[in-house]
């Protein structure tokens, strides 16, 4: 069996090249969020009408919410999470300080004076003795001009 010929569209290509990446990501997130809400309503085995009643909203509002085009407020999202028992906005339990790790790899043969790092940095020397790994406060790295690799890893 044949498949339709694949068409390269200069019009679509031009549009995709010039579009705002942020706008595309926003559209994607809105639609995926809507899909998650749709799936949760289905999983609860309730109709949109019943969900509208649960949320104290008109049916037309629910249609808008699940259309993938709606710009939700956080309060609305929290209410939906509560009613459907799902997580839409991922935040940590405690409003904690964001932890960031700064790791720099430096060759000891370079002229950088690592032992002059102020602060409480952790240092290790590898078995061959020519690589120094430090994990120290950002200010220390800035102070002696070391490169900084940010390995922050946190949800949302």
């Amino acid at each position, binding site marked *: *069996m*044949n*498949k*339709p*010929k*694949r*068409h*390269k*569209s*200069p*019009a*679509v*290509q031009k*549009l*995709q090249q010039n*579009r*705002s990446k942020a*706008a*595309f990501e926003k*559209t*994607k997130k809105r*639609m*995926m969020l*809507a*899909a998650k809400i*749709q799936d949760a309503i289905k999983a609860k085995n309730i109709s949109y009408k019943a969900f509208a009643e649960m949320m104290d909203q008109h049916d037309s509002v629910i*249609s808008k919410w*699940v*259309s*993938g*085009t709606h710009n939700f407020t956080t309060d609305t999202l929290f209410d939906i999470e509560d009613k459907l028992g799902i997580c839409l906005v991922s935040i940590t339990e405690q409003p904690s300080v964001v932890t960031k790790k700064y790791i720099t790899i430096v060759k000891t043969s370079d002229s950088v004076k690592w032992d002059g790092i102020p602060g409480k940095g952790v240092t290790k020397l590898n078995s061959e003795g020519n690589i120094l790994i430090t994990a120290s406060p950002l200010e220390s790295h800035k102070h002696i001009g070391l490169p900084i690799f940010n390995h922050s890893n946190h949800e949302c």
Partner: protein
Amino acid sequence: MNFTLVEIEELSGEKLKVYSIITEDDEEVGYTRYDRFIEDNSVEFKEEVEDITNRIEVIARYTGLRDDFIKAGEGNIGDGIYALYDKPKSNLRLYFIRYGNVAIVLGGGGQKPKSIRRLQENPQLKEANYFLRKVSAALADAVREGTLSITDEGLESNTDFNYTIDEDE
């Protein structure tokens, strides 16, 4: 009028195959009906055209086609003509034919500001919609005749996907 069905490479995805139509008038330039829609509207409604294209791409690649993202009943009963969900301040409408959740065939569209209630009030919109109804009828004939199949892989045929529209209908 003759037309050929093609797959739009930049939009088609794992979750949905996206096709459009090249009519014999556009064969030389190789423009699909959707290319025409972009060309016709991307100056006056640039952001909206981008948004429509983004939404189609997200559906095709990430979410799959879901009833809540689209608007049914844009043609006659059974011809499968749909539009994307209408945003509150939108000016444009794009029509397509839906084949389950597997494939869509993008047609054209035009301006449909909120001041217009019926598509027949805008000649361009009417032409785009009625043309797609004829395309839908031609493809339905091909399915009935057994020369066009809708599979999980999209549309398949033992022909070259060339069809004829009866202009007098």
